[in-house]
């Protein structure tokens, strides 16, 4: 049992750490993440041969400080993760709660929407939209937010179905509560814990997808220091200096793993509560 708690705590620490790094990026970064120094290109990290303490994680192909870019990249990943989840959560939860609460025709429509959404090839459509409208941070967030609501809707729908016939809903109705009050004050708070688990999953997915889109050249635009973009830019040099893709890759991996660990821990907590 102890290992479980340790894993959840580790996840929480990772997420909190990256969040803080993102918020305080300007204070933490040793250099300007956009400043180029063409005389100092592809300097390896400090612990490798040829590295120096001037650039702890080395420099990229334009001589920009890798650590500073990594630190500012935390901002982008967290921003994408959080804002995407807010957007997709709003859409998915609204649809799911309505479908689950009213059932019948409303539910049919919601289920149909979920099925359609799942049939749309996610990466392909996201790439197309970004290619057409021109890449920007806002557009990536909006596109992912408008596409990643399906799991929110599925979970909100099933959990609402479970609570809609419980006594406290009937009591609220008998007390003359309005529909909005019942949905927002009675249903929503009682399914929120389940939605929190979905939120962690979707946040991890959004961060991975942003990195993927940026890697394919259709995510956040250069010179923003997205981790996915850093891997894409380092790709041409990876055979001689593998660290250029290892550094942002491992960072991305650790953050996503941290979010997943946190989500897993939350889910176990919920399960334990119910028993």
């Amino acid at each position, binding site marked *: 049992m102890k*290992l479980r708690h340790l894993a959840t705590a580790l996840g929480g620490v990772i997420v909190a750490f990256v969040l803080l790094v993102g918020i305080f990026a300007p204070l933490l970064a040793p250099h300007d993440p956009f400043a180029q120094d063409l005389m100092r290109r592809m300097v390896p990290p400090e612990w490798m041969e040829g590295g120096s303490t001037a650039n702890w994680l080395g420099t990229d192909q334009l001589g920009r400080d890798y650590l500073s870019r990594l630190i500012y990249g935390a901002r982008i990943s967290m921003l994408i993760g959080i804002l995407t989840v807010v957007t997709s959560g709003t859409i998915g939860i609204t649809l799911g709660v309505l479908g689950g609460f009213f059932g019948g025709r409303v539910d049919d429509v919601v289920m*149909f929407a979920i*099925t*359609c959404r*799942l*049939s*749309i*090839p*996610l*990466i*392909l*459509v996201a*790439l*197309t*939209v970004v*290619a*057409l*409208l021109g890449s920007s941070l806002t557009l990536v967030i909006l596109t992912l937010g408008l596409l990643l609501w399906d799991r929110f809707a599925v979970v909100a729908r099933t959990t609402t179905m479970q609570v809609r016939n419980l006594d406290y809903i009937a009591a609220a109705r008998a007390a003359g509560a309005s529909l909005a009050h019942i949905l927002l004050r009675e249903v929503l708070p009682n399914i929120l814990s389940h939605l929190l688990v979905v939120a962690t999953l979707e946040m*991890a997915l959004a961060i*991975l997808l942003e*990195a*993927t889109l940026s*890697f*394919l*050249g*259709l995510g956040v635009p250069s010179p923003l220091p997205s981790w*996915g973009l850093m*891997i894409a830019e380092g*790709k041409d040099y*990876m*055979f001689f200096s*593998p660290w250029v*893709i*290892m550094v942002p*890759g491992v960072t*991305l*991996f*650790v953050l*996503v*793993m941290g979010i*997943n*660990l946190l989500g*897993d821990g939350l889910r176990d907590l919920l399960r334990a509560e119910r028993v």
Partner: protein
Amino acid sequence: MLIFVFRRAVLALLVCLTVLVVSFALTRLSGDLAASIAGPNATADDVAIIRKNYGLDRPLTQQFVDWAAAAASGDLGRSYLYHAPVSGLIRVRLPVTLTLGLSGLAIALVVAIPLGILAAMREGSAADRAIMLVALLGQAMPSFWLSLTLIIWFGLNLQWLPISGIESWQGYILPATVLAFSAIPALMRLTRAGMVDALSADYIRTARAKGLSRSKIVLKHALRNAAMPVVSIAAVQLGFMLGGSIVIETVFALPGIGYLAWESISKNDFPVVQAVVMILALLYIGLTLLADLMNAVLDPRLRAS
């Protein structure tokens, strides 16, 4: 049963139509297509000529109906980039993507099912924990990064496998492995959950009371029941994997429809993009329909609903 099949088929058809309308609208409403084809240096006259030649001056609904009618008869339009019929481009590339997807799924099943069974048989043990931890790590691995890492290790340092293209079948090994990685966590969790349920069921206790051996109980009785959801999820998973192969095909330069789509997107070749979206959506819808029907055949209770 017939009514069930009919209802599912009609639903699939409706979903298909909606997805097509949405994806069509998306490429047309999100900007001036003619202007993006013409490029940044084109004059207003150039754009007007392109608009007329490609039929982009007609009303949107008209364009969609024309496109859909042609698509239904197998004509997916002409590629702006290759100056060739889109259907021909896709016919050549689809087998590559399907081979990649199916071999990825095969690898995923071969890894996920035994590990899932093992984890379920030793529920709560260190082995179970370790297996679930691997699932968690797999989920967090960005597939494009895993691809690059494998290219460096196996292609460059060890020189065991080709790092791009499919001149030989070995070219599929690395991409299929990366693709399998994306499906293994879900399949493994599902196998484990199904086996845990099945192993605690009454008929297992009966089998055990009859004195059957442990391996016989697990393989003959529990697995048969646990396998059902895994088989149907595997079909759905294949749909997701085909959609996700765009990233892997791009990294490994595999000439499948994913790579074709990526190329077309960056070159504004929208008839091709539209066709690939359609093919991937159709494959996904077909596979979920197959999964539904398989479940209904295996479990008569589902047909009633």
